[in-house]
């Protein structure tokens, strides 16, 4: 499948000398919801800003639907709608005017019916003549979404769309995002809420310290989460795993005193009984054992934990 956004070897060094992105390679598939996870300062906004053309990349390049974002900036930007992380709107403008203004800047002819539809889906219709300064934070966020949708984009970037939005509204917002995806719009969102990514995304990318450390299908990730780990605390440390046990895919940890067996909870049988039997035969004794299930949260935390 041809990707709709292709990021290759993208790096960014800010004028301050700070390297915010380190050789990012990423392909976004058409029509998917891609969630970008990462701690504060990881480089999520920087990556989005480069694709949207407000930050210049230091090296590397980006193409959108085959068009270079620098050379064909008109074409690529016309395809993209951005909902920025910061709430940046005109204070005195009315909701209707600010959304129409955005559409105009994309060179599209006025289309009051389309704007009406957008405002209605975002529950902003009864606020259409209100000044933006009189709206609440969540409403302002929705105004920014309406602006981003004003020109019927094919790609929508949502930079932390649910920050400061209440639970009910968040649900409604995801409803909108899903229906957009169903209409063929590709969506890239950043979030700090892992459940949100779990809920919404087709694929998940994790970025930390400017490096993209994981990109995976959500279902694949969840399948991994469906696995449990059995950890055996050994009496005497092992140097190597005996050949006889190789079929179990065991790992040694904590300097050889921990033996880890990963198994699928859906699998029947789990293989635990057989493993324990073989361990006894091999003369490996253990003091204690416990099982754990890794959550996305844990994977995330272990991935982004700074090396000590």
């Amino acid at each position, binding site marked *: 499948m041809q990707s709709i956004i292709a990021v290759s070897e993208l790096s960014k060094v800010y004028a301050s000398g700070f390297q915010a992105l380190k050789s990012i390679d990423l392909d976004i598939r058409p029509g998917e919801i891609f969630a970008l996870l990462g701690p504060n300062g990881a480089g999520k906004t920087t990556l989005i800003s480069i694709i949207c053309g407000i930050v*210049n990349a230091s090296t590397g390049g980006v193409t959108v639907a085959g068009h270079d974002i620098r050379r064909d900036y008109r*074409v690529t930007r016309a395809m993209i709608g951005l909902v920025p992380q*910061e709430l940046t709107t005109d204070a*005195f403008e009315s909701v209707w005017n600010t959304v129409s203004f955005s559409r105009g*800047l994309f*060179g599209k002819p006025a289309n009051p019916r389309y704007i009406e539809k957008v405002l209605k889906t975002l529950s902003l219709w009864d606020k259409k003549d209100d000044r933006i300064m009189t709206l609440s934070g969540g409403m302002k966020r929705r105004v920014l979404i309406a602006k981003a949708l004003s020109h019927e984009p094919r790609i929508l970037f949502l930079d932390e769309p649910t920050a400061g939005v209440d639970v009910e509204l968040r649900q409604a917002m995801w409803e909108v995002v899903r229906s957009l995806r169903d209409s063929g719009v590709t969506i890239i969102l950043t979030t700090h809420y892992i459940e949100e990514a779990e809920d919404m995304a087709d694929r998940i990318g994790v970025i930390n310290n400017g490096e993209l450390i994981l990109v995976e299908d959500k279902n694949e990730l969840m399948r991994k989460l469906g696995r449990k780990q059995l950890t055996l605390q050994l009496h005497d440390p092992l140097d190597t795993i005996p050949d006889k046990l190789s079929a179990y895919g065991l790992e040694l940890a904590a300097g050889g005193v921990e033996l880890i067996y990963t198994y699928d909870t859906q699998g029947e049988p789990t293989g635990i009984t057989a493993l324990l039997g073989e361990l006894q035969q091999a003369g490996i004794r253990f003091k204690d054992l416990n099982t754990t299930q890794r959550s996305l949260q844990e994977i995330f935390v272990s991935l982004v934990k700074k090396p000590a």
Partner: protein
Amino acid sequence: MKIVLVIAHKEICDALRNRWVAASALLLAALSLTLALLGTAPAGSAKASMLAVTNVSLASLSVYLVPLIALMLSFDALAGEFERGTMLLLLTYPVQRWQVLVGKFCGHLCVLFVAIVCGYGCAALLAAVSGDNGVDEWFGFGSLIGSSVLLGAVFLALGYLASMVVRERATAAGIAIGLWIVLVVLYDLVLLGVLLSSQGSLAIGEQAFQVLLLANPTDAYRLFNLAGSHGATLVSGLTEAGGGAATGTLLPLSVMTVWVLTPLVATSLLFRRREL
């Protein structure tokens, strides 16, 4: 082109909504009417028509007010949008940075034009009903409006430059005020000082003095309107001395045009190089 129009349109709507147009038109109207009424009292005995007198007094009013209004419109135009973050979103649209600048410039120029026409139009109407004014006077009035808008354009462009070179709008406001004081007030005072201290024999030479006078956009504006109103009361002693020799109208106009284009181009270049 369409993008420029969309941005210009928004600036005009903004200025209408926050009553900038109304306020500046009212201010200009009030002052110009006052001047027109005051001006006619002593001039009643003279031959000059009321419109001719009004033209001259309006020209001296414009020198102070138009730059002020223009700077107040423009100092915030870029710095304010950067500070609020709206510029960032704007630049993710398929627009080029110069289009943003030119769009704002066109919009603000329209605002100035409307304010000046409405404001000075009142005085012209008063003059029209109260006496016979020839074609010459009306032509003079027309060129007064035109040159005032041009003068406004100069200070719009300077305001954008101030708005571009600094990050904060408060600083941009400071620079704008400084520009006004230097170009509108101090520059003339210094030249006048030179003129007075030389007592007839200019130390720097007539030529140099002329060049210095022309170099300042506000003085160029004065010279232009002087040349345009033959025989009317001279605007100031300074221009009388400097403009003794006929400078014509073309030269002052070109000087002002250069003063519009140079800051605009400089702003555009700075804008293009700016890392957001």
